[in-house]
C-alpha cells in the first residue's frame, strides 16, 4: 500500500483526536497503548518495505513532486520513526504509574500523541516548510507537556523554553524565506538539485550557517544549548524522557539531512564549523556532566555530549563516520530514555535528586540498580553493548580524515561520561542503605518495566549489531550519496 509511510503519523493523530472526547482515564490509557502498538507495527512494516524496495515516497494529495508535499521514508528516517514509536510506548507505560490523575484528566495522553505526530512527521517529511510545520506541532505539544501540572518551576522554565523556541522558529521561517528566494522551491530533493546546479555560491553558505543556528537551537549545540539544562529539569520523569530522547534528536536529524542533502558542495567552511562546534559541545557537556551532584542534571548534560558526538560524525562526512552517527543516534535515543526513566524511579523512591542524600539503593532495589548499571556502561560504549559500534565508527572516520583532535575528544568524552554515570551508581546505589519517607508506596516493579524494556532492546541492539548493520549502512548510503534520495523523489 502506497500510504504505508504516513501511518506512523496518522495513527497517533487519530488517537490524539479521539482522546479529546474521552473522559474515562482507563479508557484513555487503553486507547493510547493500542495506538502506540499500532504505530510500532506500522513502522516495523515500513522499515521492512524500505529494506526490500528502497526509498519510499508518497506524493500527498496526488500532486507530483516538486509541486505537492512529498513524504519520503529512506532507511534513516524509517529507523528513527521506529525508535520514536518504541520510546513512545515505553514512556506511555511508565506514565500510567507516575504521571498522576490530575495530569491525566487534563489531556495528557492526547498531547502525548500529538508530540509523537510531530516527531514522526519531522522525520518523514520531504518538504522544508512542512518540516517547519511538524516542528511546530512537536514544539507546541512539548510546551503543553512541559507546563502541564502548573508547579512553580514548570511555569518559570516553560517561559524560557517557549521564548527560545519562538525565536528559533521565527529564524527558521526567515531562513526558509531566504532559501526560497534563492532556489525557488521548497521540496527538499528539488532544492538539492537546484543547489547542485548553482554550485553553492556564497549566499547559500550563509543560508547553510543560518540553518545550523536554527537547528542548533533546537538540538542544543554549543553555544546554543543554554536553555536546555533548566527546561529539561522541570517536567516529570516520563515527559523528561520523551524530551531527552526525541526533541534534541529531531534537531540533530535536521542538521544531518540539510548538510548531507543540501549543503555538501562547499564542505571546507560549513563542515569545519560543525566539527569545531561539535567538539566544543562535547567539552561543555562533559564539564556539566562531571560538575553536578544532581542526578537529573548529570543525565541532561549527557544529552549535550551525545549531540556533540553525533554531529562530529556528521561533520567528518566519510561513509564510516556517517554510519557511526546513525548507529549512535539510535542507540542514544534508546539509552537516554531509559536513563531518564531510571532516574525518575530513583527520585520517586528517595524524594530528592541530590546525589549526596542518596545511598545504598542496591540493597532494597537490586533490579533498578543493575538496569542502571547496564544502561550506564552502554552509554559510555563498553564493547558488547550498543554504544560501542557507533563510537568506534565515528572515531575511525575521524582518524581516517586526519581529525585527530576531534577523535581524541570523542574518546576522552567516553571516559568522563562513564565517570559521571558511575558517580551516580557508586554514590547512589552503593554504600549504607538508608530509609526514605514514602518509599513503600512506590510501584517500583511497574515503573521498572519500561526502562528494563529499553535497556533490553539496547543490549540486543549492541549484541545483534551484525544483523542490524545492513539496515544502518542502507541508512547512511542515502546520506553519502544524495542522488538516491533525489531520484526516488523526483522519479527521474
Amino acid at each position, binding site marked *: *500500500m502506497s*500510504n504505508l509511510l504516513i501511518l506512523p503519523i496518522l495513527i497517533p493523530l487519530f488517537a490524539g*483526536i*479521539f482522546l*479529546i*472526547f474521552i473522559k474515562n482515564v482507563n479508557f484513555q490509557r487503553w486507547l493510547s497503548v493500542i495506538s502506540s502498538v499500532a504505530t510500532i507495527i506500522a513502522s516495523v512494516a515500513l522499515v521492512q518495505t524500505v529494506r526490500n524496495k528502497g526509498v519510499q515516497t508518497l506524493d*500527498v*494529495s*496526488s500532486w507530483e513532486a516538486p509541486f505537492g508535499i512529498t513524504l519520503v521514508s529512506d532507511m534513516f528516517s524509517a529507523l528513527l520513526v521506529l525508535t520514536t514509536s518504541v520510546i513512545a510506548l515505553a514512556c506511555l507505560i511508565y506514565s500510567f504509574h507516575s504521571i498522576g490523575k490530575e495530569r491525566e484528566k487534563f489531556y495528557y495522553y492526547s498531547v502525548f500523541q500529538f508530540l509523537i505526530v510531530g516527531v514522526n512527521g519531522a522525520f518523514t517529511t520531504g518538504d522544508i516548510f512542512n518540516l517547519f510545520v511538524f516542528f511546530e506541532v512537536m514544539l507546541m505539544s512539548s510546551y503543553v507537556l512541559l507546563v502541564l501540572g502548573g508547579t512553580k518551576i514548570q511555569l518559570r522554565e516553560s517561559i524560557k523554553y517557549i521564548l527560545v523556541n519562538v525565536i528559533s522558529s521565527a529564524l527558521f521561517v526567515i531562513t526558509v524565506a531566504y532559501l526560497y528566494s534563492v532556489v525557488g522551491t521548497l521540496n527538499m530533493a528539488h532544492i538539492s538539485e537546484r543547489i547542485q546546479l548553482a554550485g553553492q555560491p556564497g549566499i547559500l553558505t550563509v543560508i547553510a550557517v543560518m540553518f545550523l543556528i536554527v537547528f542548533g537551537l533546537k538540538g542544543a549545540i554549543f553555544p546554543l544549548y543554554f536553555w536546555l539544562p533548566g527546561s529539561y529539569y522541570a517536567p516529570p520523569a516520563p515527559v523528561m524522557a520523551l524530551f531527552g530522547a526525541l526533541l534534541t534528536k529531531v534537531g540533530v536529524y535536521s542538521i544531518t539531512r540539510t548538510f548531507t542533502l543540501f549543503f555538501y558542495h562547499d564542505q571546507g567552511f560549513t563542515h569545519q564549523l560543525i566539527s569545531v562546534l561539535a567538539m566544543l559541545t562535547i567539552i561543555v557537556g562533559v564539564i556539566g556532566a562531571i560538575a553536578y551532584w544532581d542526578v537529573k542534571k548529570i543525565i541532561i548534560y549527557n544529552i549535550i555530549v551525545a549531540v556533540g558526538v553525533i554531529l562530529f560524525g556528521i561533520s567528518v562526512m566519510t561513509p564510516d563516520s556517517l554510519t557511526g552517527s546513525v548507529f549512535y543516534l539510535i542507540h542514544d535515543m534508546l539509552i537516554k530514555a531509559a536513563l531518564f526513566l531510571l532516574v525518575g524511579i530513583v527520585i520517586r523512591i528517595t524524594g530528592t535528586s541530590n546525589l549526596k542524600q542518596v545511598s545504598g539503593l542496591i540493597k532494597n532495589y537490586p533490579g533498578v540498580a543493575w538496569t542502571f548499571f547496564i544502561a550506564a556502561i552502554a552509554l559510555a560504549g563498553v564493547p558488547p553493548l550498543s554504544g560501542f559500534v557507533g563510537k568506534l565508527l565515528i572515531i575511525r572516520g575521524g582518524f581516517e580524515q586526519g581529525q585527530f583532535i576531534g577523535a581524541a575528544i570523542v574518546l576522552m568524552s567516553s571516559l568522563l561520561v562513564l565517570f559521571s554515570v558511575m558517580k551516580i551508581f557508586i554514590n547512589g546505589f552503593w554504600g549504607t542503605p538508608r530509609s526514605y519517607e514514602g518509599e513503600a508506596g512506590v510501584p517500583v516493579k511497574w515503573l521498572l518495566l519500561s526502562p528494563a524494556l529499553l535497556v533490553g532492546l539496547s543490549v540486543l541492539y549492541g549484541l545483534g549489531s551484525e544483523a542490524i548493520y545492513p539496515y544502518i549502512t542502507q541508512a547512511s548510503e542515502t546520506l553519502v550519496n544524495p542522488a538516491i534520495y533525489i531520484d526516488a523523489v523526483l522519479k527521474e
Partner: protein
Amino acid sequence: MKTNDVILQTVTKITLFIIILFSIHLFFAGHYYPGGGFIGGLMTSGAIVLLLLAYDMKTVANILPIDYKYMIGVGLLFSVGTGAGALLFDAPFLTHAHSHVLLPLLGDTALHTAVLFDTGVYLVVIGVTMTIIQTIGEDE
C-alpha cells in the same frame, strides 16, 4: 448601580445575524474568491464574542450550549477524516474528489471534498478561539 445597556443589546441582536451571514458567505466563497475556513471561523467567533460582550457568560452558554473543546475534536475529525478517506480508495493521503451534481433546489452544483476539509478548519478555529476567550473570561 446596574448600567442599562439596552442599546448595545438591541444593536447586537441585529448585527449578529449580519455578521454570521457574512462569515458563512466568506466560508463558502473560499474556493473562488478570497475567504475560506479560517477567516470564516474567526468571523463567526467574532459574532459570538460580540454576544459575550453584550450579555454575560451564562446567557450565552444558554443560547449556545456547546462545549467548544469537543468542537475542536469534531473539526479535527472532519479534516483528518477527509484526508484519510482517500486511503479507502488507495489514493495518497489528502487526495480530493470533485464532481458536478444536479441538486433538486440549487441546480447544477460543483461539489468538492475540500469543503469538508474546510468545514473542519472552520470548526477548529471557532473551537479554539472560543475556548481561549471563555477560559480567560471565567478565570477569577
